[in-house]
């Protein structure tokens, strides 16, 4: 078991290290890619094996060691926790990573060998970090890998570092997630100060025992949630995700659709036992999740860039998951996480295939590709249907569960909002679908189908996206076995009308899109013009970006300018002033050395008088 674990966690790390440090390997390009793929494959196999083991005996297992002692026996311990939450996630992560890496071989074929090697080194680093994050048995270790995941994301978004936009997006992503991570750091410190431990199990124990409670618990959980907001792109920290699409598309599929962005949800799922103890925080989680789901869906309505549409969609779907976790429907949220990973990765890979073929991201510059790229089109369709929640595809089951849980949990308002968002989702994704594949623009006539290294992963993910719904039951079972929460078990299907409603809303959205963009039954441009102020608001992303920019300018640039100036010209000015005064007064003092012999004799008299005065009064 430990061997499998070591293989699982170590293989990507080792491949990253080899690719990173051994220059000849890195420069070998394609060979490096296959080395990395081999490593991830072994990881994936190990993960599957672990899953089998877990299914055989479903109880949590953990290993740990002292990582950083700090006096008097206190220490930071690192370890691995394998339970119903982490094991499936490990499989998911390694699986998607594998698919994406294979896909990238062709997608990135045009890169120089060195760059390709670097690309795979980053991938290995990311995968290793993500696996470490998932397997972590304590908050600090989570944070440790959490940040490394962020680094991987930064590096991969900025992979084309000569492109200023890519670098800008990478930096923005890093800063924004870092902002959330500050919350994470606070949160785990608060929890630590309340309980004296970082380990999840021990935190739960002390929380249940009442040792960890009150403000420390609330603040701690809230802090962790802040971290989750950053990574999982929850409003208003979602701003980095659409920009992150500047990176290579497989990266978007892996990191910004399937794995890293899900880390926040995963973390919140992980601390469900704590979350349930602080309903206020849970409420915030729920509300922000719903808000995110709705707002992001509206933003996706007006985007033209296919990847941005998918990115907003991701944000929106993450909102669903977060809402589920906030409503204590951990299993539902996790289920949606899984299915979303499949279909969103699929969508991204399909989009990548499109971009690879037509060299543009703008959906309105594409068109009529259904004929030229049938396989890609089919995959995109599968993904879209799953996203829109059309039964029996995976998205339907998981979204359904979330909606049901919300209804059951009495969150009527949230429920309504998410149903609305489901409709919008169906609309925007099919808007893209129809424009790309059946749109009138025929400018991309030279496009043709992608090679098999790209289509095969897409095909595999399509199968997962179609059949992923079957995972619902086992996921409930696993999570039920691992996480004790009031409502983490299987959902009682008391509200049978919910799926019907959701499906109809989804179909309605598809229909509207079909009417507008395929049948031209109405002219979307007209509506766009008519709703110009709203569109503008949406195009500017509710001005959240501008707010951040303003904050950056004032709080960082202006403050920095002020402080820097103050330091150089006031504080240092005082130092220079003192120096100058000494220097000048020393210069003035020279005047007493007139060089005339009798002036010197005055000194005797003055010295005598001074001493006499001292003698009288001293």
């Amino acid at each position: 078991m430990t061997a499998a674990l070591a293989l699982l966690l170590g293989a990507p790390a080792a491949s990253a290290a080899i690719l990173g440090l051994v220059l000849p390997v890195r420069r070998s390009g394609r060979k490096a890619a296959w080395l990395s793929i081999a490593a991830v494959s072994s990881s994936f196999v190990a993960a599957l094996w672990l899953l089998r083991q877990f299914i055989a005996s479903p109880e949590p297992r953990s290993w740990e060691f002292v990582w950083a002692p700090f006096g008097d026996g206190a220490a930071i311990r690192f370890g691995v926790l394998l339970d119903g939450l982490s094991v499936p996630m490990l499989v998911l992560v390694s699986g998607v990573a594998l698919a994406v890496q294979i896909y990238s071989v062709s997608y990135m074929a045009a890169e120089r060998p060195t760059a390709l090697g670097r690309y795979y080194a980053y991938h290995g680093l990311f995968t290793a970090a993500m696996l470490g994050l998932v397997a972590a048995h304590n908050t600090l270790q989570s944070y440790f890998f959490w940040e490394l995941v962020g680094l991987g994301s930064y590096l991969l978004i900025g992979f084309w570092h000569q492109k200023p936009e890519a670098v800008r997006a990478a930096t923005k992503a890093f800063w924004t997630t870092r902002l959330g991570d500050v919350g994470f750091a606070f949160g785990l410190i608060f929890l630590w100060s309340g309980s004296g431990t970082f380990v999840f199990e021990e935190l739960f124990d002390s929380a249940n025992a009442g040792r960890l409670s009150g403000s420390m618990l609330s603040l701690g959980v809230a802090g962790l949630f802040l971290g989750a907001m950053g990574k999982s792109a929850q409003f208003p920290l979602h701003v980095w995700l659409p920009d992150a699409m500047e990176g290579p598309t497989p990266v978007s599929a892996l990191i910004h659709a399937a794995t890293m962005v899900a880390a926040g949800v995963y973390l919140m799922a992980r601390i469900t036992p704590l979350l349930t103890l602080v309903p206020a925080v849970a409420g915030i989680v729920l509300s922000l999740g719903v808000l995110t789901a709705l707002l992001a869906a509206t933003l996706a309505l007006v985007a033209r860039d296919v990847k941005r549409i998918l990115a907003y969609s991701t944000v929106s779907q993450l909102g669903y998951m977060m809402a589920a976790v906030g409503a204590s429907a951990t299993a539902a949220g996790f289920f949606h996480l899984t299915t979303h990973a499949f279909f969103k990765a699929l969508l991204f890979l399909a989009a990548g295939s499109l971009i690879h073929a037509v060299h543009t991201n703008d959906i309105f510059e594409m068109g009529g590709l259904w004929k030229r790229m049938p396989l890609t089109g089919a995959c995109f369709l599968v993904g879209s249907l799953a996203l829109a929640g059309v039964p029996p595809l995976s998205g339907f089951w998981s979204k359904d569960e979330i909606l049901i849980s919300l209804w059951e949990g009495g969150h009527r308002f949230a429920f309504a909002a998410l149903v609305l968002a489901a409709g919008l989702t169906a609309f925007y994704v099919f808007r893209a679908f129809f424009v790309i594949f059946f749109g009138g623009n025929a400018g991309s006539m030279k496009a043709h189908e992608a090679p098999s290294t790209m289509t095969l992963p897409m095909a595999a993910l399509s199968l997962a996206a179609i059949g992923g719904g079957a995972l619902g039951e086992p996921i409930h079972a696993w999570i039920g076995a691992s996480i004790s929460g009031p409502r983490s078990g299987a959902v009682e299907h008391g509200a049978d009308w919910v799926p019907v409603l959701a499906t109809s809303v989804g179909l309605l959205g598809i229909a509207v899109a079909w009417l507008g963009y395929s049948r031209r039954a109405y002219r979307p441009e007209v509506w766009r013009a008519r709703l110009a102020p709203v569109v503008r608001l949406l195009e500017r992303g509710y001005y959240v970006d501008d707010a951040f920019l303003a904050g950056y300018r004032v709080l960082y640039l202006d403050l920095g300018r002020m402080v820097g100036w103050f330091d150089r010209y006031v504080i240092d000015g005082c130092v220079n002033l003192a120096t100058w005064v000494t220097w000048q007064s020393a210069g003035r003092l020279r005047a007493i050395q007139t060089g005339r012999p009798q002036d010197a004799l005055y000194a005797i008299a003055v010295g005598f008088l001074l001493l006499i005065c001292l003698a009288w009064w001293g």
Partner: protein
Amino acid sequence: MIIPWLSIALLSPFVGGGLLLLVPARARGALRAVALGSAIPPLVVSLVLLARYDTVAGGFQFVESFSVVPSLGIAYRLAVDGLSLSLVLLTAVIYLTAITTTWYLAEREKEFFLFLALLVTGVLGVFVSLDLFLFFLFYELAVLPMYVLIVVWGSSMEVPARGPFGWTYRALRVGGKEYGAMKLTLYLLAGSAFILVGLFLLWVEGGRTLGQPTFDLVALRDVAFPHEIARPAFLLFYVGFGILAGIWPFHTWSPDGHASAPAAGSMVHAGVLMKLGAYGVLRLGFELLPAAAAEFAWIVGTVAVINIVYGAVAAGWQSDIKYLIAYSSVSHMGLVMLGMATLTAPGLSGSVFQMVAHGIMTGLFFTLVNLVYHKARVRDMKEMGGFAQRQPGMGTFFVVAGLSSLGLPGLAGFVAEFLVFLGAWSSAHPWWLFPAVFGALVTAIYVMRAVRRIYFGPAIQRFGEIKDLHGMEWVTPIVLGGLLLLLGVYPRLLLDSIQGGVAELLARYGG
């Protein structure tokens, strides 16, 4: 047989300096070989000591002692404990890499290596001294060679004369290397004036209590200094050593000095010498005067968080890359000081660990920055861009250093920073945590901004074919970057011995 490990380590650079005098200035290969040779023993010794240090027994080990001025209680007493051991290792590493980073220096190498060796002797001496007078002596020795290093091998820049005291700037030629060198030296020696007075206070009072005057640290530890001695002494040590550690508002020597200094000078100075200030506060202030330290910890900590935030924010304004690094040092030294002010086990461990981490990190930074300057003749970030395309190696290491400085896990900076955070929150003044974390956030902003401005984006034609690292230039970044990684992944390498020292120190505060 007892091997005088510490003397070997201490005298090696000194003897190396002496040997350098014998080598003719034209034999450049031999000069470098001698310099490098003098850097090997300290490194070997520190590794040996790290391996042989008995973490269970703790305390001062490898003691060497003989009397120098018995009537005044001055002796040549050397020893290391868990706290100083790491710093000795740091010094050895930085010395070695400072030499390799200057490998291709083509201007008066002989003198350069000589002064560098003197500087390192001073630094090592402080870390291994068990006698306070010896401590002070080495401290003063460590301050001075930097002056020569800067005025001969440094570089100047323009600082526009502005502000309320702008008229003084032109008169003092602010920005010139002479200015930077003099400011650094005098500022630090002014600090030593404070230290001196504090030291003598302890000597006088200790002599009164013990019956005979002594500068022995161990003996003085047993003296319960009365408040009217301990309070001023602590403050004197704090300000005196603090100047070297860059405490606000006495930090302004650091940007000017480090910006003017040559690579190896900045490496040793920012990398090790500033630690020496912090170490002084820790040893003389916190260890010898626990009561006063506990009383004034709030000042130390509050100033430290000012340092953290102020340094980080001020760094944001700098466009000169050396100033940027210097301000980041000011900010990071704040973490060191904050860690000790917390008076908690994690805080103190983090403080010492941060000394090492920051030493390595800033050494790496200064190496790279100076190499950039050396290769492209530019220091202003506004004029840079796209260097990563021509210098992927340097870019990589710069990013590594930057990530360590912003506290990315997996690199040494994280361990230190996090331990300090834990300490801050569990200290008597938990609010320190918030500005400290804010500082870390701002660090992320300016570091990533610098990375972006220097290395990323389209290549600028003006710089043509600037070269990446080559030959010996690789050694420094690889060693330092590797250490950052190693310590970040396996912090126990040092923490095992540090925690023993910390525990002993805390025992003086009543557990």
